């Protein structure tokens, strides 16, 4: 498992993305499969920083862990985002209503809705003061 720990500030989103990109290439995974994890990383990282109110305290961090299990025809990638803060389960955020007109649309809850829709599995646990959200997806990948 690969891990990086970053200060919980929004400007570190680009570092998180660079880390994911580097790890993905090191693992020789298909570039066209990275999009869903890039999206999940952004939504969960920004969620952690904003809902965890991490920017108030410079010592607050977000930890990102990445792992892959390769089989002859598939790869299963797992990503875990954890941070210390008040319990916040993004999976309890109300599903956004999909109104057809621009004026009635809002964006609340859309990030986690997209994440859940694009991943095979999303889990959240709160343990020892840590919010831990894990996402997993299996895709075609010939060794």
């Amino acid at each position, binding site marked *: 498992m690969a891990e990086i720990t970053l200060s919980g500030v929004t400007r570190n989103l680009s570092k998180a993305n660079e880390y994911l990109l580097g790890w993905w290439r090191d693992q020789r995974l298909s570039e066209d499969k990275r999009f869903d994890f890039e*999206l999940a990383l952004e939504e969960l990282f920004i969620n952690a920083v904003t809902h965890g109110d991490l920017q108030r305290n410079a010592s607050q961090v977000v930890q990102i862990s990445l792992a892959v299990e390769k089989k002859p025809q598939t790869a299963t990638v797992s990503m875990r985002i954890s941070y210390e803060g008040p319990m916040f389960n993004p999976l309890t955020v109300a599903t956004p209503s*999909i109104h057809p007109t621009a*004026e009635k649309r809002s964006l609340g809850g859309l*990030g986690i809705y997209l994440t859940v829709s694009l991943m095979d599995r999303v889990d959240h646990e709160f343990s020892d003061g840590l919010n831990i959200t894990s996402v997993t997806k299996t895709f075609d990948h010939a060794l």
Partner: protein
Amino acid sequence: MEFSTDQRGKFTVLSPHGRLGFDEASEAQKVIEDQVQACDMGVIVDCSELRFLSSAGLRAFLLGAKAAQQRGVTFCACNLDENIKSVFTISGFDRVVPLFTDTKDAIERLQ
């Protein structure tokens, strides 16, 4: 984030390049709204060079659609790859921002 613009008849074609996520959303929102205010009949966002779109990026599209509605002009998108298109369809934004195959298709069907 880089944008290029092109005038096709009475439509402005706006092409964002690269990522449109949290870090780029504010700038993109301003560029889109400025183009909506300045256009003649409407703005077509050509997504052929757009590599990434998140919920923050969708906000720029939503505000563009709202501004276009207020001005009474068209706001749509075209040339979406599979990943970008899935973000639009899953979120239901394909009903807020009409999607077309390419700029030619958009102009023909909007005129």
